[in-house]
């Protein structure tokens, strides 16, 4: 069967030690059974490795940082669209999603560029600072948490938490604190990098298990693959992981997607205790960097999301292979200075 040509823009090309999901998403899209994609990378930094991975990314354009706002992003997408005629955009960063959600309708109506994103309400409801309320509303166990806006608030939380506890940034980063001094140290480091607020979370002992999933927006789970990290880097990222056969974890995932009518991709992060209780730590409203494992397990979620974005009907995946592993590796590319010069000065390569 001849595949249909399509142009897809993808962000998250930062395949670094704390990797964005873009490269894994692109690998999955290139294995689509229906589409023959031309991949347009959208980058924020000239050192994102995906910019130079020409076997995966056909062309890359720099886009403004999320802090530049919705109008600047729209302006840049219009410019890119004039040259590339984009069919679909798949954003992969938490921090950029607000802007893309805001633009979803305009991009669809004005430029016929489709996305498949959660609603603003879904996006906000699962924010780390709102997660405890989310757990109460949807009857999911969530570790107790408290939001801090200044260092002076640290003494106020001491009656509510015991050590150790977890200090988390709004979008990224999490560190364990064993004393009041360590809370202050982590607060300063994380807030300088990611801004406020800082979230203090109860520390739950157990092993970390994650699920990557997609919902169709009606409450139906289109696909879900659970994974346990096997090797974790000093940045807390999975360097290797293995797919699981865990019915209880999948049921919790299906229940969350059903109750929230989640639309799009998401990653659920849990701690499984020795009593086999599951505590939800985070919901990331996008594909995880390890999404290619789902493809290896027989569920190509990016391909399913692409079809849904274009209004095609997609059947739910009924099974996945367990005991499949992913292992990351690092690889030095040799890049000509001309290429670096081009992306640095012209904003495209």
């Amino acid at each position: 069967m001849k595949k249909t040509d399509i142009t897809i823009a993808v962000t998250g090309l930062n395949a670094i030690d704390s990797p964005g999901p873009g490269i894994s998403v692109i690998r999955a899209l290139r294995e689509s059974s229906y589409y023959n994609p031309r991949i347009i990378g959208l980058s924020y930094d000239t050192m994102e490795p995906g910019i130079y991975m020409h076997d995966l990314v056909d062309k890359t354009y720099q886009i403004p940082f999320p802090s530049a706002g919705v109008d600047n992003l729209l302006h840049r997408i219009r410019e890119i669209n004039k040259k590339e005629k984009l069919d679909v955009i798949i954003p992969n960063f938490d921090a950029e999603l607000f802007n893309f959600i805001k633009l979803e309708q305009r991009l669809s109506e004005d430029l016929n560029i489709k996305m498949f994103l959660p609603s603003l309400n879904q996006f906000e409801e699962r924010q780390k600072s709102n997660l405890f309320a989310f757990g109460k509303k949807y009857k999911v166990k969530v570790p107790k948490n408290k939001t801090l806006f200044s260092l002076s608030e640290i003494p106020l939380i001491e009656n509510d938490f015991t050590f150790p506890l977890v200090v988390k940034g709004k979008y990224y980063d999490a560190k364990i604190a064993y004393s009041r001094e360590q809370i202050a140290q982590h607060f300063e480091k994380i807030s300088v990098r990611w801004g406020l607020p800082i979230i203090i979370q109860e520390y739950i002992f157990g092993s970390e298990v994650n699920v990557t999933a997609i919902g169709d927006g009606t409450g139906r789970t289109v696909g879900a693959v659970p994974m346990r990290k096997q090797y974790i880097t000093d940045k807390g990222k999975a360097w290797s992981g293995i797919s699981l056969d865990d019915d209880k974890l999948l049921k919790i995932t299906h229940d969350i997607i059903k109750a929230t009518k989640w639309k799009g991709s998401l990653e659920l992060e849990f701690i499984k205790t020795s009593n086999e209780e599951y505590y939800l730590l985070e919901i990331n409203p996008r594909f995880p960097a390890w999404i290619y494992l789902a493809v290896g397990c027989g569920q190509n979620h990016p391909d399913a999301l692409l079809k849904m974005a274009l209004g095609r009907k997609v059947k739910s995946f009924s099974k996945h292979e367990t005991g499949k592993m992913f292992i990351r590796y690092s690889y030095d590319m040799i890049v000509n200075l001309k290429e670096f010069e081009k992306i640095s000065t012209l904003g495209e390569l």
Partner: protein
Amino acid sequence: MKIKQNIAISDSGFIFNPTTGDSFSTNPIGQEIIKLLHNSKTEDEIRSFILETYQISRDHFEKDYYDFINVLKKYKLLEENEKD
């Protein structure tokens, strides 16, 4: 006493628990006992088989057998209702 149905055991003695993602290695005797448990053999049947096949005293077998069963329990490889 029964090994969980979804536990995968290879010929090399590699054991994989797909619910937790844990994997283990066992020696050939451990592998043999796990296969017997997997096939729903009772403790008496396993004892008879091992004592007939290998030169080992009954006391020695029982000590090692219960140690091994405790390891399987610890790693949650036995069916839940078969724990005690």
